[in-house]
């Protein structure tokens, strides 16, 4: 029985570890400035915790086989433990866990403690059951007023956001169902939600943030690769949660300017 346990525990450990090491299923390629740092810390954590995982499981398998009744050891030792070993182990794990945390804290600080740069592109992202809307402030750089009582979800676009057309700042606001941003520019997203909590998740950008009703949450990221990236809702928001997705189009600065100008022209 001891031998069977050893074989099963070791096999489970090795098969599980294989798929991690082979990266059969892994994170999609990163496409934002922060992705490299986050992925690096991911890898470091995988090596450290992977080592602990394999070592502990192999030790468990070995010990149950080695000290089975009827095996080589005939008598159990009468020992209540070893304080020195206990202290050494405690100190080592403390260093490991707190060290991992401190190593990653600078990335977190860069992502979340610092405000977006002054020249960042502003996009307001609004989640509602079950769609994302993206609003650009236009040439005046100001978002126009929105009023909940003006909201008309079925009309879509500006009406869905309840944009107050009497506000001068709203005249040049552009509302889109697709998020278009220029590459290599910092994007400041202002996250809002109309009804329940949604969460704006772009795996390739290593970006996720809840959109909470009543709050306007400011976050930033910098795409460094052009292309289309999927946006998915990552907070349970109701029966259509699974289909609340969108597209993030990262394009060159010229294309972005052209796109925005075209949308402005459409509006006039």
């Amino acid at each position, binding site marked *: *029985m*001891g031998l069977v346990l050893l074989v*099963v*525990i070791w096999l*489970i450990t090795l098969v*599980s570890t294989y798929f991690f090491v082979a990266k*059969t*299923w892994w*994170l999609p390629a990163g496409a934002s400035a922060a992705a490299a740092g986050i992925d690096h*810390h*991911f890898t470091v*954590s995988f090596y450290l915790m*992977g080592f602990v995982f394999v070592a502990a*499981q192999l030790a468990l398998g070995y010990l149950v086989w080695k*000290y*089975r*009744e009827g095996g080589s*050891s005939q*008598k*159990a030792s*009468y020992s209540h*433990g070893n304080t020195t070993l*206990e202290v050494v*182990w*405690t100190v080592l*794990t*403390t260093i490991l866990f*707190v060290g*991992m*945390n401190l190593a990653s*804290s600078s990335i*977190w600080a860069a*992502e979340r*403690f610092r405000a977006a740069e002054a020249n960042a592109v502003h996009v307001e992202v609004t989640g509602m*059951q079950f769609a994302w809307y993206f609003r650009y402030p236009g040439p005046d750089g100001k978002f126009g007023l929105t009023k*909940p009582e003006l909201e*008309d979800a079925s009309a879509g676009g500006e009406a869905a956001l309840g944009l107050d057309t009497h506000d001068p700042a709203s005249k040049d606001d552009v509302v889109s169902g697709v998020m278009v941003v220029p590459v290599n520019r910092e994007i400041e997203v202002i*996250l809002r939600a*109309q*009804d*329940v*909590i949604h969460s704006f998740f772009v*795996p390739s950008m*290593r*970006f*996720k943030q*809840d959109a*909470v009703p*009543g709050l306007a949450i400011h976050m930033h990221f910098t795409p460094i690769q052009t292309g289309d990236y999927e946006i*998915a809702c*990552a*907070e*349970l928001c*109701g*029966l*259509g*949660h*699974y*289909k609340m*997705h969108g597209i993030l189009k990262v394009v060159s600065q010229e294309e972005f300017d052209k796109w925005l100008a075209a949308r402005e022209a459409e509006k006039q």
Partner: protein
Amino acid sequence: MATHESAAHASHAHGAPQGFIRKWIFSLDHKVIGLQYYFLALTAVFVGMFLSLLMRIHLIWPTATLPFFGEIKPETYLSLLTMHGTIMVFFVLTTAPQGGFGNYFLPIQIGAPDMAFPVLNMLSFWTTFLGFIVLLAAFVVTGGAPLHGWTGYAPLSALQSAGPGEGLGADLWITSIAIFCIGALMGALNFITTTLDMRAKGMTMMRMPLTVWAWFVTAILGLLAFGVLLSAGILLLMDRNLGTSFFVPLVTVNGQLTGHKGGSPLLWQHLFWFFGHPEVYIAILPAMGMCSQLLSVFSRKPIFGYKAMVYAIMAIGFLGFMVWGHHMFMSGMSPYTAFAFSIMTMGIGVPSAIKTFNWLGTLMRGRIRFTSPMLFAIGFVSLFVTGGISGPFLAQPVLDIYLHETYFVIAHFHLIMGVASIFGIFAATYYWFPKMFGRMMNEPLAKLHFWLTFVGAYAIFMPMHYYGMSAGLRRYSQSTEVAFILKLLPIQRFITIAAFITIASQFIFVINLFWSMFKGAKASDNPWEATTLEWITATPPPHDNFGGRTPVVNNGPYEYSVPGAPRDFVMQSDPEIKPKH
């Protein structure tokens, strides 16, 4: 001390009741109440497992028609996951290890004739039972069960118009949880008082079995956590029905104003997770205690580092209240607090690592007997390590940005809180069954059950890590709408097949349980040659546990293979040993 103890015993010794209703239904006997809790949890776990099977089938076969539910719509799927989570967390993982085994064995292991407050004990069970019935009722009311998940985030859970199931179903759901909290608070009070006041002569705190330590600290966690959840639940009910706005700001649903304004969705999350994180330890601490116990018994060796184990249980309990914010890194909470919560969370890994180290230390140089309870205890250690390893990923906000709400989280908490804890329950069942029913369970069937469940649990939950690392999101009723999730469908297929086999093999356990109750081989008073007080009394124990005698404790709980002793175990009630080292 002696007079105090005997006076306490006299006042608690109530006569054995006659008649079926007083003996088995409205019983004051902690042993019967323990069994009631156990069978409630057993019923609940089969309901919860059945719901998960329906979800698994729907995930890979979305158009299939299923028993009881017909065609599964997206909202039906969300109701299934809400009810699965709620049933499993409250009525299985909180009910069986603490209410079930804690009730039955805590008084016996400390040498007491009953719990401190037998009537309160009966009330706490029947309150819990009522909570379960109210929860199940949510399935049959108009609109069905709620779809807001077991965490019930507001405003989704607070607005009737937010989706199907958010009407009466959601009211029943939150009422059920509030009722459960009341039952759990009564239970916690009873456990704490009993442990502090009812110990037999000589049963000092540092001679208590680790099971007792675990139940005791779990009760303290329950007392502090369930009160907060109860309050939050009442506020949510008021938001839903009385027009208050604790958790709801000015929101519109489908462009319609809801009449709420000024509330905070994050307040619900803070209150919920202030309960929710200690709840993880409420589920796992008793399993840790049971497995510590069994590893020592079946290695025929004292537990490695008894004091370290006690301090680790306390540290986990203490730190458990300071880490709730790690569920909220992406919620819009201040990023500075995320930093603090992260450090505390990584810190709680340390006592968990100490425990793992001590379990391995206990096996080392032992003489291991591979009984079925021991197999489940060893399986527990393996699963605890695997489930624990993914914790430090999620505890770091910078990695949680990506992993939050993916199946990586599902893998993590199912392994550590669900499966590991269930392995503790299985281990305890196989271990204590002879004491509870006077018969042995069938050993070959038990071993078959172990192998299928152990390999099955890994086959189900290990692939969920890969799914989550590929950005596979949880609570998606279908994977067809998002390309990066659709391509992960093969993993879901594998998991569903594994779940089918693992769930089917649980019937081996149930058949064994009921068959052995009536047909199992007669058990002796101490079949495992263990040292704690439940093994000195008759099998099954008499109404007052020790048949009018009051045990006196002279030894620690884990005196195995003592040099110079006549047998390889020394009972806690044996004359005090002076081991020659």
